[in-house]
């Protein structure tokens, strides 16, 4: 069995796994940040990721804004929409059972996806890659854009992790989750902080969407299909754990790729199998500290 596998196939799949893992990591990190502060599982995350890609596509086709402009503009636009949504939908629900937040974000995702599919159809639209060409490594061909995406996502993940775990701002965020009234009594505007944090998480999703646009096609369902895996990643990593989300994201991307090489039929399921095993052995997820739950 093993000698039948060419290095091209193996490394090609590993690269795909690394790319997928980059998106899993960025998206589950955004989910973890939002959950960590607001206790809301942002079910609209996939729709916001899709909106990021879509905004980039619209900017290119209607305003002629190139990829690099969209990389900045699209996340800002989508984050603004997200903050408005936080004010209008999530704020009134924040003192109720957290399940309502989950369901409300799901409802928003349903509406957004439906409207976009109604307007632009379900088929994917191509987005030209801003960096062409690649390098032949001897055992495989590495397109520059994919290389850039992997590096970019690692930088974003590390940067965000440092920001939240090792700066004063991050300490405020964590404190506001534990004891919002005390943080407020120190003169911190907690509601505004919540809005901004949600906007940041949404912006991260949209940024991932822009990065994804040249690799996958821009389509209304691109977020939903990805989110199914991302939710499993979040459960495995431990809900609310940022470092857990990042590491689990990359590892599972690679695990999925290896499964595709050695047992193709199981590739769609392996993430869920891992999830069930982890849940049976470590019910709180791999990286969660018990006091956070």
């Amino acid at each position, binding site marked *: 069995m093993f000698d039948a596998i060419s290095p091209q196939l193996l490394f090609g799949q590993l690269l795909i796994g690394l790319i997928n893992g980059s998106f899993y990591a960025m998206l589950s990190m955004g989910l973890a940040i939002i959950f960590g502060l607001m206790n809301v599982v942002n079910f609209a995350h996939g729709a916001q990721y899709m909106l990021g890609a879509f905004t980039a596509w619209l900017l290119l086709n209607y305003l002629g804004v190139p990829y690099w402009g969209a990389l900045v503009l699209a996340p800002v636009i989508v984050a603004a929409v997200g903050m408005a949504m936080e004010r209008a939908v999530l704020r009134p629900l924040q003192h109720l059972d957290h*399940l309502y937040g989950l369901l*409300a974000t799901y*409802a928003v995702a349903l509406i957004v996806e*439906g409207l976009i599919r109604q307007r632009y159809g379900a088929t994917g639209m191509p987005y030209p890659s801003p960096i062409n060409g690649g390098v032949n490594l001897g055992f495989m061909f590495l397109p520059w854009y994919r290389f850039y995406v992997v590096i970019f996502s690692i930088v974003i993940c590390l940067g965000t992790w440092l920001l939240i775990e090792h700066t004063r701002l991050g300490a405020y965020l964590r404190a506001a989750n534990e004891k919002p009234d005390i943080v407020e009594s120190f003169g911190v505007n907690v509601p505004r902080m919540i809005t901004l944090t949600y906007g940041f998480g949404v912006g991260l999703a949209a940024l991932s969407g822009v990065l994804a646009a040249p690799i996958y096609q821009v389509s209304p369902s691109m977020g939903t299909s990805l989110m199914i895996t991302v939710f499993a990643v979040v459960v495995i990593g431990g809900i609310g754990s940022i470092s857990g989300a990042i590491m689990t994201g990359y590892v599972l991307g690679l695990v999925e790729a290896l499964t595709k090489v050695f047992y193709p039929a199981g590739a769609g399921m392996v993430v869920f199998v891992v999830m069930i095993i982890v849940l049976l052995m470590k019910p709180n997820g791999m990286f969660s500290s018990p006091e956070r739950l």
Partner: protein
Amino acid sequence: MAVRLLLGLALLAAALVAPYFVYSVTLMVILSFVVFACSFNLLLGYTGLLCFGHAMFFGGAAYITGYMLKSMSMPLELALLGGTLSAALLGFFVGLVAVRKSGIQFAMITFAIAQFIYFILLQAPFTGGEDGMQSIPRPALLGFIDVSSSTTYYYVVLAITVAAVLAFYRIVHSPFGEILRAIRDNDARVESLGFKPERFKLLALTLSAGMAGLAGGMKATIFQFATLTDVSFPISSEVILMTLLGGLGTLAGPMVGAGFIIVLNEHLAQFGEWALIAQGAILLLVIMFLRRGIIGEINALIRNRRVKKADRG
């Protein structure tokens, strides 16, 4: 109480004559979704557990029932029972993994397991993959009652539905149901009284899954096919919407919700995406402004009026 009994009887009478006025397949679909929504209500409304993948029980059982009828040529009643029991068994195994958690975590775990089941059924050889399982036979009930016409079968489906709703009523009004409600409101307190909440949650999930399986089996025999749509997430979210819209933790709520959403879907089916958009909009409105649901609001109104009357008197 007498008023409620009267209302129930009136509803039953209306259900008995309904096929003379409304297309009986639509009625049967509504009934199967009434059972499905009741099963969901048992979990979320009475136990406080949000199952975010209830379609795995519904659609899984649809395939099992279909398989038993089509490939094993089993009798109708046995196939429905088989679907129900296999869904209950699946519920039990899902529960082993999931009941240690509640709230958000339970929702996410059931969501992910349901996707896993979806992938399995997509690849399993007996389901027919993307095409689904077609032309499932509908043999005579108990071997001698011909149910090939949908009007006749409607009465069978109605009888099963009434039996299921009565069973549901018995469950939620039993001491077991009381404990479930106590777990929903305060599970630490239940534990301190010497009960094991996990065991009760596991049993509730098993019962709910079985009931969802019965609904799925009914659906497979009504349309005489089973497809991947039955196991997919939109079905899971539809049942959430039905239950919330009608009223969580009320007996009549899921019935009203199921009827409303099925009729809405039929009317909007020709407008493509608008059916889903409308579902999203209704769900959002219910969550923001109508969290007690239609029946819950009516109950609250009646209660308020009663209190006012008592004050005046």
